[in-house]
């Protein structure tokens, strides 16, 4: 509007992002201090990669309100895609990973177009179908994918060096193990994932996405092409999953169609809801918790499943908005 704009900085400033990012960086840098052995690193790497997928999925589910129960398909597509590119076409891992991501983007665009006009549970079911189909293809095309027995993946090579998790490397005079290098990669990847996600959410694009969740009609009338935006965020979150999947493949050295399974998709969505929908930091915590619980429960043997189910229920009952948003609300200062 044309009227003069009085200076009113305190009332309208957007909440700053950097404190959160700084805290994340500090945590990621400090975690190695607590890592007693390489197995701890292994867990942290897995958490970081899973968290990155969840951060991407959260854009779709938490912010745009479109539920996907088939996201593991994109994760698997990234993992298998890059592994096969390296294996069959002699492409080095990093470009292979990017190529796979591009392929996944195209795939997500193609399948997203028809199914994203579905709503609610119907969308869940359609995405679930995608996941199921992906898992079936990976299982059946065993000539290519190794079938249910899985596929060995060549390790990541950086600057011409193969990165072995058992190797050790000299870096600026410091000797670090391959696993530690991997931790650096995974943590860096997570950090970038978060940074990009926060940027996105805090942009007009992100606002439009959240509006999809709030009121699709309001968004449309404001000029948001809802179909296009849903498709966009679907593709973005698929790319997140693909990249994390590729890294996971390189790191683990072996992948099976299980990573495309319904169970895995459910695990991803559970992480998002557990951590807190529409809370980027929340889903990181969600990933950490969901992956750590089974590690703590191994001692209970038979009771593991019972306890896992009970913990999941309890958290969701007492923190229905998810961990971080519920806690944030509890500690929030009284609003002015």
């Amino acid at each position, binding site marked *: 509007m044309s009227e003069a704009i009085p200076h009113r900085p305190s009332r*309208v400033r957007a909440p700053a992002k950097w404190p959160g990012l700084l805290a994340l960086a500090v945590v990621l840098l400090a975690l190695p201090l607590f890592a007693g052995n390489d197995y701890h690193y292994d867990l942290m790497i897995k958490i970081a990669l899973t968290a990155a997928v969840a951060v991407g999925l959260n854009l779709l589910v938490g912010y745009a309100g479109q539920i996907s129960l088939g996201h593991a398909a994109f994760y698997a597509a990234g993992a298998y895609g890059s592994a096969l590119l390296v294996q069959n076409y002699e492409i080095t891992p990093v470009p292979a990973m990017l190529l796979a991501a591009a392929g996944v983007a195209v795939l997500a665009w193609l399948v997203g177009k028809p199914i994203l006009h579905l709503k609610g549970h119907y969308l869940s079911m359609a995405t679930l179908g995608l996941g199921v189909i992906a898992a079936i293809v990976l299982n059946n095309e065993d000539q290519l994918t190794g079938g249910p027995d899985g596929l060995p993946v060549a390790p990541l090579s950086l600057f011409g060096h193969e990165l072995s998790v058992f190797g050790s490397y000299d870096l600026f005079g410091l000797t670090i193990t391959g696993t530690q290098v991997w931790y650096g990669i995974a943590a860096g990847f997570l950090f970038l994932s978060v940074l990009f996600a926060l940027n996105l959410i805090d942009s*007009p694009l992100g606002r439009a996405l959240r509006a999809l969740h709030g009121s699709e009609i*309001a968004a449309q009338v404001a*000029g948001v092409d809802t179909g296009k935006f849903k498709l966009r965020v679907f593709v973005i979150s698929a790319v997140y999953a693909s990249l994390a999947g590729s890294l996971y493949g390189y790191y683990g050295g072996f992948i099976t169609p299980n990573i495309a399974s319904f169970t895995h998709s459910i695990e991803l969505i559970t992480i998002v809801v557990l951590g807190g929908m529409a809370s980027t930091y929340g889903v990181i915590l969600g990933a950490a918790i969901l992956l750590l619980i089974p590690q703590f429960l191994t001692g209970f043997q038979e009771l593991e499943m019972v306890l896992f189910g009970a913990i999941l229920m309890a958290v969701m009952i007492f923190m229905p908005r998810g961990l971080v948003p519920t806690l944030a609300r509890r500690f929030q200062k009284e609003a002015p």
Partner: protein
Amino acid sequence: MTALLSVDQLGKEFGGVHAVEDLSFQVEKGRIHSIIGPNGAGKTTLFNLITGLYQPSSGGVHLNGRSLAGHQPHELAPLGMCRTFQNLQICMNMTALENVMLGRHRHLKQGTFTSLFKLPALRRADRQCREECAELMEFVGCGQYIQHHASAMPYGALKRLEIARALASSPDILLLDEPAAGLNRNETDALRDVIRRIADKGITVVLVEHDMKLVMSISDQVLVLCYGRKLAEGTPEEIRANPDVIDAYLGNRNPREEATA
């Protein structure tokens, strides 16, 4: 004066019920054009047809001489048309200010990469948008809710928030569906000023309202709908005196009118 919006023999049928039937009228640029009529007369349906939420069964709508046939709702904001809703459409997962900022959507960069990297240009534009939208909230009279979450606002304030959001898209033509519902006398008076000032900026206003005091005091032209058809059209004075309108809509004794008389 030229017709900014023209509705030609528009019809909409829902399983045998003609919600709008053979309706033609024109809205001239810069005017405040009110549409009144009994409940269920088809006013909201008409808005939904104009803004592309419904596809007409017959007839069409032109904006600035351009046919809107087959346009999707989201294609209208760029053409300069925006609206509010009788059944509120507020994004309850966002703050009040963000709801208004959503209205500026079409003026801001949406590129995926621009957004991912949050380029400075985008950041600047967004900051400015924020200020402007806060200003708009003040303008429509819900400035005290700038920092509120939309879900924490009372009904009356939400109605105004919708107006602010619609204004944020800097429309040429603004369709308001019962903006005064839920406002008291004083608040309605304030709203009248807001609408006046909107019109003064050259924005054409199409107003659906049951508050006759507001309608009669502000409209340049009034269209009366009844059972989806045009019952009458004219200046407020003409309409007030029209016996058909009194019969079908106003009633013999209009208490609100009397209150102002």
